[in-house]
Every structure is written in C-alpha cells, then in structure tokens.
C-alpha cells in the first residue's frame, strides 16, 4: 500500500479530500444534527432481524461516516476529537471496513430517515460514502461489474442492441399471435410518439413476458407509443454506487433519446429505483431540466382503465394478493396510492400489508444489494422481519411495482419457504384485460382480408 506524506494511504486521503467536495448543506445538517437518541434503531430491518447486535443500528452505522466528517470538516471534532467520537481512515483496510458497512449493512431504504425526529437522512450520506469508496475502486465486485456494464454498454445487464431488438421482435410476434392481429406492432424508434416507453433490462434478459404484457395493454388502449433502440434502460446504478456522474450519464441517455424521438411523454416501467432515478434524481445528476412529461407505467395503466381505454375483469386474477411498496417508489417518490387503486381494479382479494406505504419494510434486496453476492447470507438473515411481514398477510401472492423487489422478495420467500408468488401490476393488468371482443374483431378483419385476397 502506497502512502502519502502523513502516513495515510493515497486512497484514504482521496476519500477524505473528496468528501469535502461532495458534502451538501442537507448532508452536513444530517451529519451534525444527530443527538444519538436511538429513536431510529427499531426502524431498520437489519436491527429487527439481528436482535442484540448494535452494529446494525442506523446511528451506529452513520457514525462510521460521521466520524470522518467530524474529524476533517467540523471544528468540534477538530478541537475535541475523542469527545465527539471523531475519527479518520488511515489505511485501505479501514476503507474495506467502511465498505462492508455502507454497502453490506444498509440498503439506503430511508426507513430510519422518516423515523428520525431530527430529520437525519442517513441514506443520502451513506450513498455519498459509497460514491467516495467507488471513486477509489473500493466496492463489492458485483457493483463494479454492473456499473461498468452500464457505462460501457448502456444498460446494467450488458444487453446488446441486437438482443434487445430481437427480444422485442419476439414479443411482437407473441402479441400478434395472442391478439390474432398480424399488424400488431411494438414500435421501435417511432418519432413524434405520445409515449416513449423505457424498461428495466431485466425484462429483456429474464422477464420478456413483462414486455409483452405492457405491449398488450398499449395495444388494447390504442396507444401511440414507441420503445427506443438506445437509452431504453431506465435503471441506474448511479443511485446504488453513489456515482453522480454515472447517474447523470445513464439518465441523460434516456432524456436525450426522448428528445431525439420528439416523444411527448416518458413512461417508465415498474421499477422503484428506475423510477426514482429517471423521474426524480436524474435531472439533478444530469444537471438538466426536463422539458417533457414523465410518469410511472402504473399511472398510465390506471388512466387507461379510468378513461375506459382498456377494460379489465378482476375475476381473471383469482386468489389473494398483498402489495409491497418499493422503498424508492414509496419513500422517495410518493408513489403509494395509484398502485393500490390499480390493484383493487384488477384483483378481488387485496389485503394490506402492515406497516405499509412509506412505512413499509425494504424488500431487503434494495440499494443494489442483489448484486453483492458476498453479503447474501447476511441479507437473507436480515430479511426475517420482511418474511414475517409477508406471511402475516396470509396471502398467496405479493404484488410489487419494482423489478428489484421482485428479485429480493423471491429470494427471501424461497429462503424462508413462504410458498408465495411475486408478480407485478403489469402482469395482473394484462391478465385481467378483456380482449375477446377485440380478438373477435381481429378475426373478422383477418377473414375478410383472406377472402378478399382469395377472390382476387
């Protein structure tokens, strides 16, 4: 390990120096205002699932970052370091230890934030600390890999353009088959569309059914929409690794493409961190004011039903359902009511989960945790409170509006043998669609066309 003249490793020195550039007044307030009252302790799923281990307490974790702030940027810590628990990082090993806390013991879910009487927002400065570490190359391997994919290929799962287009074409064929309409399309790069629809690469790689379901809904609604061939990934690893530059670049690609296509509205498929990144944080990271409208596909689907553009039949979705609020949707974007309204229109038996909405527990796979294999055992152990919360609903299916939560919940449901399924609203809405009339109409058109061709 190479060191600076003061004996500190170069990386540690860089982390300290860069902290000063990254701190905002909001963060400084959060770093200075904690009174160590402990009110936030029980709000964290890590604490609740690991009783007796105070190192999971939000204030304890926050203090691992706060000590640096106190020592290097707050004069109380400069004058009386021990008195206010100010401290520093000296070696790369110290940074590795910090990495295990900021990545491995916190999903940046913000549940402690809404439970702190002082308004301390740990998740925001925890993200900043992640960014400082990533900047000097200290991060979980999975985080490094995914961030690299997003920088280099333009989406976080390394989906190549040809694979993306091929999958859309495949789903277009499925759509044509299901709707019995050879003219049904999933348009790509159509200019001047009302809607530009962006998705999570997981939909291309692992869940193409969601692309088809969304296409069916757009088809039935007669929507004027397109999917972009570039800038289609609305997820953003910049939110997880604390890299504002990556965040701005990824969101910027989406915005640029919408502008290039002259789209009127950006519709973001169901993904908590994607929605937060593209709808909320992206303009801040990209330092760009967005000139077009954008909304979650949940809102779009709800509007279609309310405006009578699509008809749904809730009896097509039998069984019991509960709803899991993604942290990013609920605690950072206020998307809590529309999903419930939509859900109650497409299923009969909806049972609320407690606590819910902005007070819901994290799926425990948030903050990029699903990409950090080294923390999986601890993540699943810390999912106990979520597992209890799910099983208390007595339902068979948990619905969520987030691809990341689908994975996080599926993993913990398997681990705790809860025997539940996980699905998204797009799947339920598509399943509940009343399509018979339309298919009948398509058949008539098709047979008329066939007879016309035969007559020629």
């Amino acid at each position, binding site marked *: 390990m190479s060191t600076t003249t003061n004996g500190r490793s170069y990386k540690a020195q860089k982390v300290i120096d860069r902290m000063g550039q990254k701190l905002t007044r909001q963060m400084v307030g*959060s770093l200075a205002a904690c*009174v160590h009252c402990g009110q936030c302790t029980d709000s964290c799923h890590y604490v609740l699932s690991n009783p007796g281990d*105070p190192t999971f307490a939000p204030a304890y974790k926050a203090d691992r970052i706060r000590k640096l702030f106190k020592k290097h940027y707050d004069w*109380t810590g400069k004058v009386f370091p021990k008195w206010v628990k100010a401290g520093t990082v000296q070696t790369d090993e110290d940074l590795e230890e910090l990495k295990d806390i900021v990545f491995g013991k916190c999903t940046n879910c913000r549940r402690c934030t*809404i439970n702190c*009487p002082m308004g301390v927002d740990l998740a925001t400065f925890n993200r900043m600390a992640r960014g400082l570490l990533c900047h000097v190359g200290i991060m979980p391997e999975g985080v490094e890999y995914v961030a690299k994919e997003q920088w280099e290929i333009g989406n976080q799962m390394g989906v190549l353009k040809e694979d993306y287009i091929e999958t859309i074409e495949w789903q277009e064929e499925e759509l044509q088959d299901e709707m019995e309409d050879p003219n049904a399309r999933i348009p790509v790069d159509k200019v001047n569309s009302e809607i530009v629809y962006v998705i999570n690469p997981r939909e291309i790689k692992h869940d193409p059914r969601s692309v088809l379901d969304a296409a069916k809904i757009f088809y039935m609604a007669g929507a004027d929409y397109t999917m972009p061939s570039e800038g289609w990934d609305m997820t953003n690893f910049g939110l997880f690794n604390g890299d504002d530059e990556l965040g701005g670049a990824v969101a910027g690609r989406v915005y640029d493409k919408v502008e290039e296509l002259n789209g009127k509205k950006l519709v973001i498929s169901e993904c908590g961190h994607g929605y937060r990144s593209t709808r909320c944080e992206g303009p801040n990271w990209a330092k760009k004011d967005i000139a077009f409208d954008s909304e979650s596909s949940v809102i779009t689907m709800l509007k279609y039903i309310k405006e009578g553009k699509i008809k749904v039949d809730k009896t097509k979705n039998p069984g019991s359902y509960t709803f899991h609020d993604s942290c990013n949707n609920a605690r950072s*974007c206020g998307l809590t009511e529309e999903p419930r309204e939509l859900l109650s229109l497409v299923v009969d038996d909806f049972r609320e989960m407690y606590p819910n909405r902005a007070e819901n527990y994290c799926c425990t796979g948030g903050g990029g945790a699903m990409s950090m294999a080294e923390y999986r055992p601890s993540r699943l152990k810390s999912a106990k409170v979520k597992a209890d919360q799910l099983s208390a609903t007595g339902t068979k299916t948990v619905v969520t509006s987030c691809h990341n939560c689908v994975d996080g919940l599926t993993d913990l449901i398997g681990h705790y043998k809860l025997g539940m399924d996980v699905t998204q609203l797009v799947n339920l809405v598509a399943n509940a669609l009343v399509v018979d009339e339309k298919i009948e109409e398509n058949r008539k058109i098709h047979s008329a066309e066939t007879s016309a061709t035969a007559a020629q």
Partner: protein
Amino acid sequence: MSNLLHFSSHTLQEIALVFMATVYFMRVRWFLKWPLAKERQPATGMGDTNPKKGARYSVGKIAMPWAMESSRNKPLMYAQFVIFHLGVVAAIGLSFIIPYGPGLLKSAGLVSLIQLLTGAACIIGVFRIIRRITNPYMRAISSPDDHFSLVLLTGWFAFAFMAAPNNISSGEGVMLAYFMLTAFFLVYVPFSKISHYLYYPFTRTYLGRHFGRRGVYPLKRTPA
C-alpha cells in the same frame, strides 16, 4: 444577596449568553456556507402536497407523535421527551426570572410548575443516564459528549428544582451552583450535541421540502 451571587446571576450569565450567541452565529455561518443541493426533479406524488406543505409538516412532526412510527409505538418515550424538553424550558426560564423578574416567583403556582417540570425532567434524566449505559444499542452509539451532556442537564435540573423558590435564607449554595452551572451550560452547549436545536429547523425544513416535492410528506398510511 452576596456580590458573588449577584455576579453569578447577572454578569456571568450575560457573558455566557453573549459567548453562546457568538459561537452559534459562527456555527450557523459555517453551516450556511455549505452548498445547498438543488432539486430539479418535477414533482411526484398525488399532487396533494408541495414543498411548503411538506416543510410545515416536517417541522411540526415533533408535535405529532402519531405521524412517526418511532414515537407512535413508544408513547412513554415520547412523553419523556416532551417532559424533558419542557424541563429545559422551565430551567432556562428560571435563569431569567430570578435575576430579572424575581417578583414572579411570589406566585406559588409558578414555583410549583417550575419544580414539577424540572423535577420530572431530572427523574427522566436519571432514567436516560441508566438507559444510555445499560442498553447495548444506546451504549454503542453514545459518545463521551452524549454522556456528559445528559449528566450535566440532569444535574442542572436538580439545581433548578431547588433554586425555584428563590430563597437564600438558608444559604446561597444552591443558587450559586444553579447559576454557575447555567453559565457553564451556556458556554458548553454550542460545542455539544445539546445544540441540536440549532440545526433542527434546517434539517427538518430541507427534508420536508424534499419529501413534499416528492409527495411523501404528509405521510399516508393504513393503520393495522
């Protein structure tokens, strides 16, 4: 009244107050020099809130124990918090009443109220000291400043309780201790976590504006 008591209850307090105000001024200036993160995102949520509403809710949340799970689920902790802070108000008030409006303390009712609040706050202080030492979570997050500040406040409450009748017929010891402690308290506070109330309006307003814009504050929930 001896010269020492007069000095302690007047000049010393004034010097300490000026000192505290100066340090606070510097502290706020330092704080305001940090750049405010700009929010560019278009508003989210149901459209039933905005940054102003969010900020009002956020600042007022302290008086709405039902609005925060951490206080809702622990009503006793919340009650303690309220009494403890009312004790602070009473003890501070007393440090002004004795030198500048001693006539007010002829009211037995006011003396009893101050004693009730400072006495209760003192008992809560003792409870909090025990909790901070014995509860492993509290111990893990506590700094020497946290412990010292709590002991200091608890001791100060005890002396405020004894000083409230403003009676020096049986000696000035209690009054002297109360005013000396108050002066020390005023000098120490800006360097300690007790100065949290300086940040409170800022942190809560920033968070409230942020969550108001995002449609998160005021929180919505369906109770169990």
